[in-house]
């Protein structure tokens, strides 16, 4: 029994040929068969897909935009990075830096060796836990994608900033990114998703990362789309021996923003450090599903997510830690803290532990709370109004995570964006306080 969305998407698929045919066919078959998620589907229990199901999408993008318009939403002030811009899934060479272009290949231009590598990653991804129908759709529609490959012991001297903008008003973009870091390689990747106001397109993104032995991957995934945008994204991370994954995830919120993050500790010695912030307002929905798979011994992970839910917005956090049978000596921690600002806002959180090894240290915690009354009173006793105090404290709650960001420019840039979201403009600019 398929929905209108499914029927439409299947009809829109282009015939495939060439080396991606196998994956296209596998995705198509699975997507055609897939049950549309309901409240009874555990992984989608709190994530309503009405914004997709009740919406008729056009096949292709139409709207056009000017370079200035684009520049405005792609820039992160103060960030020194190599920029790569995709508009509605299409790479825009003229908006991208030459260095960035030289670092990436498109699937469509892949050589034989790269094709093997890509095909292998794509097959791997189909076997991942939590694989869902939108991943199938992505496979079914896959015609092109971006491959970032960093060679043995190499590093890019600046972050790579990959901006995906949706400008069409009503279409579906399936986008795919594969990152491969070879032994000892190092990369900072900033994935930035943006959309134009009133754009009600659906972006279905999938990013797969292989972090090789002793390689380091710093990852920023910033979801800055406007309120009408629909977004479902999956990040798959495979960690090899002594690999290091350090990441920050931001979900600003939209009518539908769903993010899945799956981290596989495949060989001993790897470490994952994951931080995230979500701040939906109005009637937005943000859903983060994270899954840390400790498959082998001697790996560690630490995950911290914080959310502030305003107005009638709804947030979902599902943080799973899965310790497999042989993953002795695992250290894994997860913390999720939430603030509800109104009595129409809603949070559903589930930190899950699934443990099959005994010599491990795991802990998780989740809280839902209101702002600390003592702190609020302290501010009020210094003459700060209640509303203002609330804003300051809410902002402080997530600012702690921004302070920890390694690429400071991102924190500096996000601070006013987020402060503004809570109705407060920053008193001091980053330049003013840079020396503090």
């Amino acid at each position, binding site marked *: 029994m398929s929905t209108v969305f499914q029927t439409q998407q299947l009809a829109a698929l282009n015939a495939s040929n060439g080396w991606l045919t196998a994956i296209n066919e596998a995705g198509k078959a699975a997507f055609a068969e897939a049950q549309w998620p309901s409240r009874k589907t555990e992984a989608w229990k709190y994530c309503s897909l009405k914004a997709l199901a009740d919406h008729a999408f056009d096949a292709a993008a139409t709207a056009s935009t000017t370079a200035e318009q684009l520049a405005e939403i792609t820039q992160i002030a103060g960030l020194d990075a190599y920029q790569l811009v995709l508009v509605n899934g299409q790479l825009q060479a003229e908006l991208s830096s030459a260095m960035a272009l030289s670092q990436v290949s498109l699937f469509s231009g892949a050589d034989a060796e790269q094709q093997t590598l890509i095909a292998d990653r794509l097959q791997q991804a189909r076997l991942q836990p939590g694989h869902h129908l939108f991943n199938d759709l992505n496979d079914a529609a896959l015609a092109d994608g971006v491959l970032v490959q960093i060679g043995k012991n190499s590093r890019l001297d600046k972050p790579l900033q990959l901006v995906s903008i949706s400008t069409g008003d009503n279409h579906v973009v399936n986008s795919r990114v594969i990152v491969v870091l070879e032994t000892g390689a190092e990369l900072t990747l900033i994935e930035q998703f943006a959309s134009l106001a009133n754009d009600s397109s659906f972006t279905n993104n999938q990013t797969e990362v292989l972090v090789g032995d002793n390689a380091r991957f710093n990852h920023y995934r910033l979801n800055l789309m406007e309120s009408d945008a629909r977004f479902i994204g999956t990040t798959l991370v495979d960690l090899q021996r002594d690999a290091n994954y350090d990441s920050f995830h931001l979900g600003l919120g939209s009518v539908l923003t769903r993010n899945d993050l799956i981290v596989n500790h495949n060989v001993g010695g790897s470490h994952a450090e994951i931080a995230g912030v979500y701040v939906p307002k109005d009637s937005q929905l943000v859903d983060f599903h994270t899954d840390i798979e400790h498959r082998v011994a001697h790996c560690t992970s630490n995950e911290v997510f914080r959310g502030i839910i305003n107005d009638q917005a709804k947030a979902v956090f599902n943080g799973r830690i899965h310790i497999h049978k042989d993953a002795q000596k695992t250290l894994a921690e997860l913390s999720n803290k939430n603030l*509800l600002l109104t009595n129409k806002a809603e949070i559903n959180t589930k930190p899950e532990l699934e443990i099959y090894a005994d010599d491990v240290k795991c802990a998780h915690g989740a809280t839902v709370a209101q702002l600390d009354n003592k702190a609020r009173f302290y501010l009020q006793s210094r003459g700060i109004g209640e509303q203002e105090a609330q804003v300051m404290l809410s902002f402080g709650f997530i600012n702690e995570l921004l302070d920890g960001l390694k690429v400071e420019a991102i924190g500096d840039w996000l601070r006013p964006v987020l402060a503004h979201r809570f109705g407060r403009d920053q008193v001091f600019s980053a330049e003013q306080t840079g020396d503090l």
Partner: protein
Amino acid sequence: MNDVVNPAAAELPNQEIHQQIRKEYAAGFISEIESDTLPPGLNEDVVRFISAKKGEPEWMTEWRLKAYRAWLEMVEPDWAHLRYEKPDFQALSYYSAPKSMADGPKSLDEVDPKLLETYDKLGIPLHEQLALAGVAVDAVFDSVSVATTFRDKLAEAGVIFMPISEAVHKHPELVKKYLGTVVPQRDNFYAALNSAVFSDGSFVYIPKGTRCPMELSTYFRINEAKTGQFERTLIICDEGAYVSYLEGCTAPMRDENQLHAAVVELIALDDAEIKYSTVQNWYPGDEEGKGGIYNFVTKRAVAHTNAKISWTQVETGSAVTWKYPSCILKGDNAVGEFYSVALTNNYQQADTGTKMIHLGKNTRSTIISKGISAGKSQNAYRGLVRMNPNAEGARNYTQCDSLLIGDQCGAHTFPYIESRHPSAVVEHEATTSTVSDDQLFLCRQRGIDTEKAVSMIVNGFCKEVFKELPMEFAVEAGKLLEISLEGSVG
């Protein structure tokens, strides 16, 4: 006897922890008692038969049939983390009663001595002069209640404590008013089944402002083969009243799995308090995972304004356990508590936890859950804390700890938290730990042998829960853990 060493364990690196030995289940004997047992199978006639056997009034028969019809349309649930062979509902017998009970004994002197002996063997003497001081007991054997002690003394205080089958006749207005109000007939698959075929269970009513003068308890015993036990307990604590109630459960060792699908409803009216404790020691199956009870239970309580519900459970038995004693905190300032120790060994599976539904203002709940997994068992905590849009100032604190003994078992935590009020506070913490070699060595270096060391550590782990049990049962619970774990650590 039965010091069976698991050959697989010898290959494991950490011999200290991995020797698997299992002592005999002490309550595993079978009583040779002649029974009236209904042939296997379930249809409307069986439901009518059970109702007729109890001489029930028309309204009760209809109530059951309604449940039966609802059940027919329901699908048996598939639980994510439980693996077991689903019961064949047509192969079960839905009614079994000792023959000697056919006409119903008028007093303890008329009860079949073999039955009394069974309870003596289990350490629950039913003769009042021998009984635990201050504890009134209702003994349920397969489908019927065989004896209720201290009835007169309770009657003086106005407390009603009797088999539910009897309450249907003697207090129909109370049963009619409350039965199915907390767990509706079509609540879930097993609750619907229970509503259709329940045979007996305990009924308690504590009048307004009364503090029940003694602990009440029910001992459940499944004896007959191929029967399911479907008991129904209904406890009503009227305004300002208090009761402490304890249930205990055992079953003989049998190779085939047996089904136990109970429903417990608690109602605490304004300012009332109900403390409900369970020591569950149904037969868990043997060390190969053969046999044992399927324990699929729906327990739920409603707490009105200023009322308090406290669930305490020590779960060591059953092959498969599925139960979530829950609290609906309906009135303002209502309090819900859940204290649980769930131990699994060998091939046992437990999926247990609680639901705290905060509806009223300033409602408070506390959840302390301690899971111990040993052998090849799987032990999951599954909980829900929901703060509804009116739950202003509500609070929950949850602490959920797991102890793993050996690397063949699993410990899982699935806490669902749903909050819809900005002033509600929910705090959830979970940890896992193991009995480490370093800890055992420290103990042994001080002259304490391994078995004793493990028992000390495990009891220490469960301390916060045991202190919630009535005194006599806390000791019993500690011993039960020791027996259940015996030999799981070399």
